[in-house]
């Protein structure tokens, strides 16, 4: 057993007993950590109001060497996620970030870059950052961090580069784009078609440069194609369609 101190984002919580809760944090140093917060539901709990969903707090916990849950001993509120006033979509986008972090990260597998990006994404959702594009970008960052980002740059079969005069199909089962030549006849009627313009938007979204993607204004068709490809990749990685998409209704 060792005492650990870090900063974490609450991504899930469930009642454990009359007064205790099991809280899952996504932390910078340790990745996902599930702890039992004894007495968390009591009015005079030592965790105060720090354990609400999407709250960032400084925590101290006892790390168990066995498979038992770690024990939270201290939690101090640092920042609470506040969705835009009257905007349910910004709240649901925040929930989606929590769903992705919980579903696609492993316990004690740290991803400091992903932690920083999650914080930046939530800050943008609470302010006036673009919701749909911001979420797409975060999904791509998560996929890259866990090593499951599909290849959006070339045909995964023949290596043909994705350039402006070619259109491709997106095949999540094959790990990325497949050109018409490699798809053969069936490609012409494929619902997985992704146009060159949509790919250009995707490339900008997945690039590391901070500001360029915020100026993107994709057409409805481009957004639909990109959303379809990213949803397929996320669903493939999660093993099911994300719950929050039923609420966001893209």
């Amino acid at each position, binding site marked *: 057993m060792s005492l650990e101190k870090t900063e974490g984002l609450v991504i*899930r919580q469930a009642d454990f*007993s*009359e007064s205790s809760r099991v809280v899952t944090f996504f932390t910078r140093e340790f990745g996902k950590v599930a702890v039992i917060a004894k007495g968390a539901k009591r009015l005079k709990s030592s965790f*105060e*109001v720090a354990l*609400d*969903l*999407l*709250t960032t707090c400084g925590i101290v916990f006892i790390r168990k060497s066995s498979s038992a849950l770690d024990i939270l001993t201290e939690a101090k*509120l640092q920042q*609470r*996620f506040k*969705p835009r006033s*009257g905007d*349910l979509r910004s*709240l*649901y986008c*925040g*929930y989606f970030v*929590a*769903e992705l972090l*919980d579903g696609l990260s492993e316990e004690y597998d740290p991803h400091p870059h992903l932690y920083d990006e999650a914080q930046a994404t939530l800050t943008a959702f609470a302010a006036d950052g673009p919701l749909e594009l911001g979420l797409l970008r975060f999904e791509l960052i998560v996929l890259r961090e866990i090593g499951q980002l599909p290849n959006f740059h070339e045909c995964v079969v023949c290596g043909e580069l994705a350039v402006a005069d070619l259109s491709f199909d997106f095949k999540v089962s094959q790990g990325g784009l497949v050109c018409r030549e490699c798809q053969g006849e069936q490609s012409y009627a494929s619902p997985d078609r992704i146009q060159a313009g949509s790919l250009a938007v995707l490339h900008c979204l997945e690039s590391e440069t901070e500001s360029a993607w915020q100026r993107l204004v994709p057409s409805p068709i481009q957004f639909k194609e990109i959303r379809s490809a990213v949803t397929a990749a996320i669903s493939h990685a999660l093993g099911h369609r994300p*719950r*929050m998409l*039923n*609420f966001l209704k893209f």
Partner: protein
Amino acid sequence: MTQYGPAITRLIDEFEKLPGIGRKSAERLAHHTLRCSNAEAFALADAIRQVKLAVRSCSVCFNLTEKPVCDICADSRRDHRVICVVEQPRDMMAIEAAGVFPGVYHILQGRISPLEGIGPDKLTIEPLMRRIRADGVREIVMATNPTLEGDGTSLYLSNLLEGQPVKITRLARGIASGSVLEIANKEMLADAMSGRQAF
């Protein structure tokens, strides 16, 4: 290794299903049940049976009641045009115990929690909307818990009520009476400052 016969084991198993009861406590309760008189044990069994058979949700507000309409909804002295919306009956009882609310209640039977698969369709939102339209309600007091999900549920309801001739308010939040400023966290202070009132 089974130490007890099937009847005692079954009783222990049933006690263990209760919230906050582990195996040891379940065994203690089972031994207490065995020790007490038949009349006492049967009274407990009968009370459990009665509560399951007699208690239902109020047809108006979804409070727990043994009649078709609960005492609060049936009380003509209350202001039926002001509805306080809470997540569960225990929240309503807490407000009732304070004795400060003259209106009536509506129990949502939960809160919107998309990550747990609880959407608006799983709550009593549609009956609330029907009630508001039919009863000429003038004020809705949002008293969901001050958590992200509780506030999200209130936000969903207020969006749904947009355009309706009804005033929407929510419980005040901030510093508790009797506490001191220097130990209040920044969240409490921010809430108190943004919700300040004319003196």
